[in-house]
C-alpha cells in the first residue's frame, strides 16, 4: 500500500486522524493533513482505506502495490 495526500484539496476536517491516528496527523497552524507513514503496516490497511473513504475532501489516495 502506498498512500498519497493532496494538501491542496485537504479541508482540515481531521476525519483521517480520527480513523487512523497512527498514519495521519494535522499541522498545528492550519490543520492540513500530515502523512506519518506513506507505506503503513498491513494491520493498518483497513483503517487507512476507511480514512480515504470518509475524507470529506477526497484528498487521500490509496494505491495498491506489491
Amino acid at each position, binding site marked *: 500500500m502506498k498512500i498519497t495526500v493532496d494538501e491542496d484539496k485537504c*479541508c*482540515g476536517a*481531521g476525519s483521517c486522524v480520527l480513523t487512523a491516528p497512527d498514519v495521519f496527523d494535522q499541522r*498545528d497552524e492550519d*490543520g492540513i493533513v500530515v502523512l506519518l507513514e506513506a507505506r503503513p503496516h498491513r494491520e493498518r490497511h483497513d483503517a487507512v482505506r*476507511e480514512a480515504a*473513504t470518509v475524507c*470529506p475532501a477526497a484528498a487521500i*489516495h490509496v494505491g495498491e502495490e506489491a
Partner: protein
Amino acid sequence: MNAPGHVLVVGASAAGLGTAEALRRKGFTGRLTLAGAEPEPPYDRPPLSKRVLAGAWEPARAHLRTPDVLDVLDARFLLGDPATALDAERRSVSTASGRTLTADAIVVATGIRARRLSGHGGPQGVHVLRTLADAAALRADLLGARRVVVVGDGVLGAETAATVRTMGLEVCLVGPQPAPMTGQLGPLVARRLSALHAGNGVVLRAGVLLDGLLTRDGRVSGVRLSDGEELEADVVVTAIGSSPATDWLDGSGLRLDDGVVCDAYCRAADGVWAVGDVARWHHEGLGRLLRLENRTNASEQALAVAGNILGENRPYSPVPYFWTDQFDVRIQVFGLPSAEAPARVVEGDLAQGRFVVCQDGPRGPVSVLGWNMPRQTRSHRASLVDHYTRPLEPTAP
C-alpha cells in the same frame, strides 16, 4: 441476512459513490450499478462555490475519483439518466431513458435540489448553484458583471458572496437573519462572520427578504427588498434553500416527509436504503429524525449504509460535522449549534481571529465550533461523542 446479489445505487454523487466504494471495501463481490441524473462522472460539490467558481480549479479537478479508480470499483455506471420511479415492493427503478432496473438492494442517494424563485424560466442573469453546470454558467456570467446580489444567508449564500467578492466584484448579501449563518453557527460566531464580510467589502442587508426581481430587456437589473430598498445588480444568485429530490418517489411505497424517512439503520423499507442529503433517519443519540445536508455526512452515512446492507446491523449515530471556507477563514462545526445555548471560548482568542467555542446544553456540550483552528477544534470533538452516540434513554418518571 445474506449478501445481496445486485445492489443498485440511485444517485452518483458523494453519498452514492461512497456507498458503492464501501460495499466493495467490505468485501461485496456481487453486481453493482450506479445510476446518476447528471452526465458528469461523480464530482464533489463543496468546491463549486469556492475554487471552481473562482476559477482556481478547472471543473475536472472537482471529480471525486480518477477514471482508473472508478474502473477498479467494477460497477456499471448509468450516467445522465435520471430515475423517474421506484417500486419498493418489487425493488425496481425506472429511468428517463426507459430502462427498468431491478436489484436485491436499492440505495436512494438522489440528494437535494436548489429551490428556485420561479421554475426554470425567469429573466437572464439569475442563478442557483448546485451542480457543476450551474457553477460554469454562473462563472461565465460573473466574468462580465460588476454588481452582484446574493440572496440567502445560509452556508451557500455566505460562501458564494465571499468568493464573488474575492473575484473583485461588488457584492451585496441579503438574508432574513440578523447575521449570515446564525442558524448554523449561533449568534456569537455569526456576528464575527458578519464583520468578516463587512471588513472585506461585502455590503450586508440583514433581516430582509427578497420582494421581487427588477428586469430590463429580459435580463435582471436588480432586486427589490421587503423593506422597499432597491439594489442594482448585473447578476443575482439565489441560495434560498433546497428540497430533497424525492418527487420521483411519489407512489413508491416509501414514507416521504422532508426526505426519505428511515429507521436508525438508514433503511426506508425492506431492501431499500437512503443515504446523504435525501435521507431523514432516526438518530438514536438525539432520539429524533435528522437530515443533514453536508459533505461529511454523505461519506459517513455511506459507510454505515454499506455495512448495514451487508448485515452489520449498526445504528447510524454520528457527531454531525461541516466546514466552510470564507475569505481567509475556515470555520468548522462539530455537533448542532443552537441559537440559545451559551457559548464559551475554550481555545485561542476571539480578538486574535483564532479560537474554538463550545456550547453547553442541559446534558453537557452540544457543539464545538472552530475559527481558523482546525487541529484544536478536532481535538475538542471528543467532548461531544457521548451526547451524540449514546442512545437517548427514556427519561425517568
